[in-house]
Structures are given as structure tokens and as C-alpha cells.
């Protein structure tokens, strides 16, 4: 049987035999769907090798459930269990990507938020600095802070509802 390691040190290779692999059944939300689609083979595949990190989790008594990235990674293993070529390449790439940016961590969240923030807009920033001047452009960067400070601190309002009450008095209450 070929099984992907979610966190194991041996990497994502799918060529290891069944012998010598210590397995545990993982209670995950996706398990029923998998069983429906794959039957007993799916149940068998929806297992993972115990890693030192898993053991540590058990000792700590928390985070027993498989994490999101691991579930996805193992689903890839199911898809690629009886095939080679592209499925294996994809599985290996997923493993590598999950190692570089582990899903669910602060680091991966920063990258995701950076992805949503950074874009083609930065190409226009030099032009904006040209129009506003170096000091003007820098001042704009602190504009929102000044604005929110004025509202939230000076006036003593700390809730969006209250801010809405002032800024959009006529509309509030429609909900």
C-alpha cells in the first residue's frame, strides 16, 4: 500500500511498501465521504503514519485531529495511489509546498494576505509619489490612521455600529 506522509520526514514518496509502516486511523470530517467513494480501500488509505510530531501531540493532549493541509495532502495520496506520472508529481509538489509554507500557520496566513494585498497597484506608486511629493505620499499612508484615531479615540467611539450611526445616520436601523 502506498501512503503519503503528511508530516513525516521521509518525504512524499509513494513507493514504500506496506511493511514497517505504523498506521493509525484518523478521525476527520472528510472520512465518511471518502468511505463512500472508495469503500474499504478508501478507509485503508485514509490513514497515516505516526510521526514524532503526532506522538508529541498525543502527549500534549491537544490537536489530535488532522489539520487541513494534511487532509488535503492525504486526499492527493488517495487520488494518486493507483496512478503514476502527473498524480505523483502533483502530490510531491503539494508536499513540497506544504513544507515551505505549512497551511494554517501565521506565516502562510501572512503570505495569503500579502497575495491579496500586493498587486499591480504597486506599479503606480512612483507616479503617485510624483503627484503628491515624497512627503505628501508618506502623509497619505498615515491618513487612515489619523482618521480612525480621530473617530475612535478622540470622540470616544469604539464600535463600528456607533461610527455608522454618526456617518450614515439615516441608513442605520435598516437591518
Amino acid at each position, binding site marked *: 500500500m502506498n501512503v503519503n506522509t503528511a508530516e513525516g520526514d521521509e518525504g512524499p514518496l509513494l513507493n514504500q511498501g506496506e511493511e514497517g509502516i505504523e498506521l493509525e486511523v484518523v478521525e476527520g470530517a472528510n472520512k465518511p465521504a471518502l468511505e463512500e467513494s472508495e469503500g474499504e480501500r478508501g478507509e485503508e488509505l485514509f490513514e497515516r503514519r505516526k510521526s514524532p510530531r503526532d506522538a508529541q501531540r498525543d502527549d500534549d493532549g491537544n490537536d489530535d485531529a488532522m489539520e487541513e493541509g494534511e487532509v488535503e495532502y492525504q486526499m492527493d495520496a488517495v487520488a494518486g495511489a493507483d496512478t503514476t506520472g502527473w498524480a505523483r508529481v502533483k502530490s510531491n509538489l503539494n508536499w513540497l509546498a506544504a513544507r515551505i509554507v505549512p497551511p494554517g500557520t501565521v506565516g502562510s*496566513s501572512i503570505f495569503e494576505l500579502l497575495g491579496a494585498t500586493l498587486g499591480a497597484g504597486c506599479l503606480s506608486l512612483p507616479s*503617485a*509619489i510624483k503627484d503628491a511629493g515624497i512627503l505628501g505620499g508618506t502623509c*497619505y*499612508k*498615515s*491618513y487612515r490612521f489619523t482618521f480612525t484615531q480621530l473617530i475612535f479615540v478622540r470622540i470616544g467611539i469604539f464600535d*463600528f455600529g456607533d461610527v455608522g450611526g454618526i456617518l450614515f445616520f439615516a*441608513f442605520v436601523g435598516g437591518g
Partner: protein
Amino acid sequence: MLAAFYSLHLLVEVSEKKRIYSYEELTQKVMGKKVGFILELSILLFTYGTIVAYMMVIGDTLPPFIRLILFGTQDTPTSTFASVLTSRAFIMTFFVTIVVFPLSMLRNISSLRYTSLLGFLSITYLVLMITLRSLQRIYSPSDGDSASSGTTRGEDSGADHVVWLEMGSNLFLSAPIILYGFSNHVNIFAIRRELRNPTLARTDQVIGGTNAIVFVLFLLVGMFGYLQFREKTDGNILNNYPTSDIAMQTGALAITLTVVLNIPLRLLSLHRILGLKG
């Protein structure tokens, strides 16, 4: 940066208090349905504008490359067929139809998850190259001039003085561009949902780290891009660099790829608002 951090922190804090984890729903809850409608309309226009800007980047960046690959020259080909094939309008239409449209209809876009990393690396490379080119010009002006001679693109303007503060109407034109740079509020809830153990402190780490990186990158690209070209700075800084500058054009290609892969992610909010998905 501080403003963006503070406003994002407030959003997350209010969402925790109200137990609502969607930007649109939160607005409707605290400000009413009518303001919620205004917000959805704003997001719709915002996303639409973003996608139009992305398409313009594609149209600005790709034609010279495609001319170079297909015809071995960066100038406009003489034959009608070739000029149409490498025209801005054709290339933009082609990419929308063949690349962006299928990507925007993916049932599962998890495969695009790592494009964020690719986008970050692309933009970091581009920012570093812009900074490097600017420093090269500052410390050896002759090198900078020679690197950008022979074309209207890439003209340095060493004689222009540096504008520290512009008090004219242009000041207001630059406001939306700079303020837009920190706009990631709509996405914070979706990203927080995927964060393991999403406490307020950990969320603040995400927000603070993101804004600090964005601030540094924007400061570098804005200041050094402007200092190199000054009054001749184009609305798209990439247009200032000659097409013969391989390093810059590589960065341009990378950011174009990022933009193409980013469009499906941007379309998600449009789908949600229009009720096309989820």
C-alpha cells in the same frame, strides 16, 4: 501602515464580539442592510476596477514579449496579420478568453493557493530591481543613462528636481492609488478562517507582519521609482524601462503571470456578491 493595521484589528475584534465572520454580513449587522448594499456595490466596483487594471498591465507588458518571441523584434511588425496578432487589444482579448475565463470557472481553486507565494516573490524581485536600478543611477548617472537610451521609454530625468510636497490638485489624484495599496480588509475573514488557533493575538501577528512587509515594499518602489525618473515617471513604472532591460522585463513577465493567476481569486468576491457561488 498603522491605519491599515488598526482598521484590520478593529474588524477582527468586532467580528469576534458579534460572532460574524464575513465582511459583508458584519457590515449589514452593525450598519444596516442599506449600508450593506452600498458596501457590496463598492466591493463590486472595486473588484471590477482591479480586474480592469490587471488587464491593462497584461496589455502593457505582453505585446513586446510576444513580438520578440514570434518575430524577433520588439517593434510593431509591418504585415497586417502580424500587427493584429501582436496588438494590445488582441492579446488582452486572447488572454481573457483562453486563460482568465477558464481559470475563473474552476470548481476548486485550491490549486491556486500557492500563487500568493509566487506573487510575493515576483513583486519582491521587481521592487528590488527598481531599487537597484535607481541606486545605479544615483551613484553612477552615466550608466543609468546608457542603460535607458535610444527610446522614449526609460528616459532618466536627472535635471528634474525632487518634489517633496505637491500642493496642487494632483495631490488628490494620488490619494486613491496610495490608499488602495493597503486594501485587504475584505479578505481578512477568509484568511482568518484558515488560520490555526485564530486568536486575536495571532491574527494581529498576521496583520502586523503583512502590513510591515507591504509598507517596506511600497516605500522602496515608490521612492526609488520616483527618484530615478522624477517628472517622467509613468503611471505604470514598467513603461519607463526600456524593453532591452532583460532583468526588468523578466520582472514584468513575473508580475503579469501573478496578475493572471490573481484574477480568479479576485473574481471570488464578485461571485459571492452576485450570488453565483456559495
